[in-house]
């Protein structure tokens, strides 16, 4: 028990570093989940863009165009500097900027229909493409009513009315992936956080226990080496499971509605299996260095590598094919693949088998890394 006690005293000494990672995790989660109500969409609602409109004409027709866009999008009115527009577009604060120059109505009435308004958008962006299409469509309606012999006031009114005639659209049941997007993000980021928490905390304790002077003191104590290893392993297990439980409790607080479901249970099992790999990895890393700074570097590099290449930060579907082929050599790839299987739809028996295979592969990775750690340890003893 003395060893276990010393283990946790050492953990306490390094607790600040552990809390920094936990803080980052909470900040990321809160940031990414604040705009999501977690409810699946029941009816279709068109995407709303953020559009900046600068109306310099102030006429019935320019107001009509403004009203049309305002009825569909989030519109910000008023003049903005060129610098401001560029920054807002780059940071996606706005998706589109429209300028209605003076003389717009006069030009339209005189039959001119080329370059009547000016827009700025991100080159070739999908949002820009859509806004272009809508504005073009509305001005076509307006111009058609004018050509049809209506006054500007009537054309403006009728165009707005006509633009409200919309196609029938049915909403099929949303895919499970969309339903659970925030809790899926939570389990995705868990990969990086588990690696950071366990490797930082447990790694530092293991390195401390292996320090030469402490090791010599242990050797001359009546406690056999096997007992020391056993208690260290028990301490490591307790600490790792405690980190995992802490994250799960965070999940309960953040997603109380999604926690008590079969899907969440499968997510939890998946993360618990991944924890085995993280523990093995920590053991291996602790054998590679005795320097806390280098441990920190290795923790960051392994955590970021497994996260970026496994599809934690960016969905696997957006990743390059060649990179994905390499990613199969990483357990995080199989962790995310298992997550995707659970979240894509209700599991069929075939998919369930596939899910179990993903868990099995992660266990094999854990075993392989553990074996690697044993080899390194043996080699160091010989040295």
């Amino acid at each position, binding site marked *: 028990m003395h060893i276990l006690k010393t283990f946790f005293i050492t953990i306490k000494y390094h607790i600040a570093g552990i809390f920094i990672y936990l803080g*980052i995790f909470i900040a990321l989660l809160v940031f990414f989940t604040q705009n999501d109500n977690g409810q699946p969409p029941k009816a*279709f609602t*068109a995407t709303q863009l953020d559009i900046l409109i600068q109306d310099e004409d102030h006429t019935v027709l320019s107001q009509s165009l403004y009203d049309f866009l305002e009825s569909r999008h989030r519109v910000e009115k008023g003049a903005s500097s060129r610098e401001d527009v560029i920054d807002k577009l780059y940071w996606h604060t706005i998706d589109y900027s429209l300028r209605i120059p003076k003389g717009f109505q006069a030009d339209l009435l005189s039959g001119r229909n080329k*370059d*009547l308004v000016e827009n700025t958008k991100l080159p070739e962006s999908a949002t820009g493409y*859509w806004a272009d*299409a809508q504005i073009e469509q509305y001005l076509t309606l307006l111009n058609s009513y004018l050509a049809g012999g209506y006054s500007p006031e009537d054309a403006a009114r009728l165009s707005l009315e006509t633009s409200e005639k919309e*196609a029938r659209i049915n909403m099929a*049941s*949303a895919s499970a992936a969309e339903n659970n997007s925030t809790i899926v993000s939570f389990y995705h980021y868990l990969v990086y956080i588990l690696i950071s928490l366990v490797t930082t905390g447990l790694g530092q304790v293991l390195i401390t226990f292996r320090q030469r002077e402490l090791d010599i003191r242990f050797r001359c104590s009546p406690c056999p080496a096997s007992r020391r290893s056993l208690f260290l392993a028990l301490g490591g297990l307790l600490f790792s499971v405690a980190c995992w439980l802490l994250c799960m409790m965070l999940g309960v607080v953040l997603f109380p509605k999604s926690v008590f479901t079969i899907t969440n249970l499968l997510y939890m099992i998946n993360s618990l299996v991944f924890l085995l790999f993280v523990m093995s990895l920590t053991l291996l890393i602790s054998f590679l260095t005795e320097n806390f700074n280098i441990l920190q570097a290795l923790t960051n590099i392994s955590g970021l590598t497994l996260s970026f290449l496994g599809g934690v930060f960016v969905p696997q579907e957006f990743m390059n094919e060649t990179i994905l082929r390499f990613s199969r050599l990483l357990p995080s790839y199989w962790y995310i693949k298992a997550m995707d299987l659970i979240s894509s739809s209700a599991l069929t028996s075939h998919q369930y088998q596939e899910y179990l295979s993903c868990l099995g592969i992660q266990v094999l990775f854990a075993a392989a890394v553990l074996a690697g750690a044993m080899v390194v340890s043996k080699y160091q003893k010989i040295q």
Partner: protein
Amino acid sequence: MFFHILKYRLIQLFHSRNILIWIFIFPLILGSLFYMGFGNMIIDNGNDFQSIPIAVVGQGQGNPILDEVIQSLSQGDSPMFDVTRTKEANAQKLLQKDKVDGILYEAPEPYLTVNRNDLNQSILYSFLSQYIQQAEVITRIAENHPENLEAAVSQLRSDAGYNKEVSMTRSKNTNNLTQYFYALIAMICLYGGQIGMDTLITLHPQLSSHAARKSIAPVHKLKMIAADLTASVMVNYLSVLILIFYITQILKINLGDRLVLLLLASLAGSLIGVSIGIFFGSLPHLESNTKEGFLMGFTMFCCFLGGLIVQNMPSIVEEHAPVINQINPAYLLSDCFYVLNIYQDTARWCRNVISLLILTVLFSLAAYLLIRQKTQGSSQKGE
């Protein structure tokens, strides 16, 4: 003597494993991970418009006019739609598996089925609504102004081009994922703080035995300080140059074509990085581990606000507390790189570089005052 000290300080820095890992190797790994993790989004720009995959289900007699429109919109170099004509059951399967963004039922009155509220579904919805709205315009004009029907129809069919695009940016690379690379270069500049702190420790006799030995050498103090600080900036700047070369030449990320200004901003970055390290190193009454912790925390916090973890963080800060951006060296640096790539003029680049130089002077001055105070305090104690 200046060059002699400089040479040995450089050798000493290049022998530090800690510095080699954090300053030279870690950024290259992180840059590669960004590149591999973002996959095709960093190359193709994730916001670019891509053809929308749809399933078209013909019913009854079909709809020849709509058929013709869909046909014309699914041809050419960058077609609007990627059409799969199929039976309803298969279309439903494709939708469920997210292989298509929507199902378009052609007749008798066209309608859509989608399974989520995204941009592509909105574009699809807008397209079909346009078809219905044009029919409405024709009906209305045929009823009220049949004499103008021909003119109205010709307006509806004309490809007018009412909306003119005005480009405001210098480069076509408006992909804001590039922000991660700007922030990475900024981070490495600020990592110069580790070298700066190490340099201070080797210069200040009260902080290390090495410095105590150096202090009794028959060399002018200013010469020694100048040589050591030059070496620190040189090593940090070298790592920044390697990183810029790697990002632009190996990863082929477009950082713009103003290389000289980019390198000048990076040099200002190395100066501020080293000066921050000197400032933290000179903080009184703290262990060197604690100082390192503070320095790392400060650096990472600045980088977080500068967009290293969440790329649009600078825009969020700009909206809520713009003053923080003006004093955050990581933001000032990444904004320098952004401005060079996007803006035509360099006024903002100049403002940022001047702010960085002012901050460098302030940090150095603060460090000088702290060290002076400590030295005076020590000598008074000695007396």
